[in-house]
């Protein structure tokens, strides 16, 4: 997932998939992203992720919701997301849950979600029920709190920052 060329909306808190992914990994990253500092363009890893997304499941097409871009949706409303990662992470499922929430708000009857990891040829299922719904709503509220904060959250431990495109910004002094 990349932010793409959509204009950064800084005064409205429309929470997209990337926001949720960042929140789960590192609130600071979300805070910076929301303020329009987005160094992902310069990152090899992000570029790699885009290529993986472009070259796998090529018969599917994106569903663009404005604030979020879902990789694809199959009948029965199952939401699919491709990740270039080699290990499932809590951020990935949270992102898919958020998509479920967004679609449901638009009146779609969502059944669940799947995260695809083409590099290791695995998938993980994301269930969608009342528990997941409250979790998704909590996460969204948390994201909005972080975005609205006036000061940036602290850095994580240095070892957790490996591969982050914000690393130069956070640790470059």
């Amino acid at each position, binding site marked *: 997932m990349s932010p793409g060329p959509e204009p*950064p909306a800084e005064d409205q808190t429309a929470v997209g998939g990337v926001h949720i992914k960042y929140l789960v990994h590192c609130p600071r990253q979300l805070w910076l992203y929301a303020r329009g500092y987005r160094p992902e363009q310069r990152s090899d890893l992000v570029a790699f992720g885009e290529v993986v997304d472009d070259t796998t499941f090529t018969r599917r097409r994106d569903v663009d919701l404005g604030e979020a871009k879902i990789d694809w949706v199959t009948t029965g409303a199952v939401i699919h997301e491709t990740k270039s990662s080699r290990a499932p992470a809590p951020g990935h499922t949270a992102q898919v849950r958020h998509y479920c929430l967004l679609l449901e708000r638009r009146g779609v009857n969502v059944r669940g979600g799947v995260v695809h990891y083409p590099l290791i040829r695995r998938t993980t299922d994301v269930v969608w029920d009342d528990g997941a719904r409250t979790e998704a709503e909590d996460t969204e509220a948390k994201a909005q709190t972080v975005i609205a904060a006036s000061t940036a959250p602290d850095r994580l431990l240095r070892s957790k920052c490996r591969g982050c495109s914000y690393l130069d910004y956070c640790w470059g002094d």
Partner: protein
Amino acid sequence: MPAVGRTYWLTEPCRIRREDNSVRVERPDGSPVRIPITDIRDLVVFDHVDINTSALSLLSRNGVTVHILDHYGNHAGHFSPAESMSSAATVRRQVEISADDEQRLAISRSLVLATAENIRWALDTDLLDPALEALRNALPACRTNDAIMGQEGNFRRTAWAVLDSRLPPWLRMNGRTRRPPTNAGNAFISYLNALVYARLLTALRSTPLHPAIGFLHADTDRRRNTLALDLAEPFKPLFAERLLRRAASQKHLKESDFETDVGRASLSKNGRKKIAALVREELSTTVHHRGLKRQVSYEELMHLEALKVVRLCLEGTPYKPFRPWW
């Protein structure tokens, strides 16, 4: 994260064409070079280059900056892609900080002091210590940017005299002259300063900062990118003074690399090529960065410098200008 793409230096006359979604550089000796667009971060143009709008729009779409240097090596202009890195929050704070006298002066002072210390580091001499001490004592009393620049000028004059004493007679500057540089030494310094400025501009382009809102240089005279000029200051000694010393001591430069006229000097074609190669090598020199725990090139140091200013704007972390730590 290493940056995507590289800098390409066009030192010969050539033609830049678009071929499908890729770039073809046609050289006068016939053989075209095809470069994948994703591999280009920016182009530095030293010589006559033909380019058309379809190539430019391709470059713009992929966020490539084109820097154009004129015959004397001054920055003649640049083509930059449409803003994709915009952040209103950052620019707003940048304007506030540069409008607030106290904060602006504090940043100016630290920039000037860091530059002076970097010059001392580049010349590697204790002859400059008294001048540096005088500068340190004089800066806190300066209440305007002009006064700060004046103090810097005093230090610079001393520094250039010291530098001159280590150069062969034909390369001596005998006082700094610009627009146009009057002799070989000045032509060299002007040329490298323009290059450093162009690199800083590129670095700023990949941040949300506005390159024209700066702290130290006057933003009233020419329409210049003040912030790029400001941030270039601490890096100039690392390139200009240092490489001039090195080129002189290694006898790398010859008098034939310059075209000297009455009252003006510029680099000859060969000289330009030589220096481009020298700078390219220098930019890719790496040092170990303790915070990032990896090797960073001098080029990346400039990018990190721009990020420090972004941090200053977004989070209010005090800005400490670049000092070589190696």
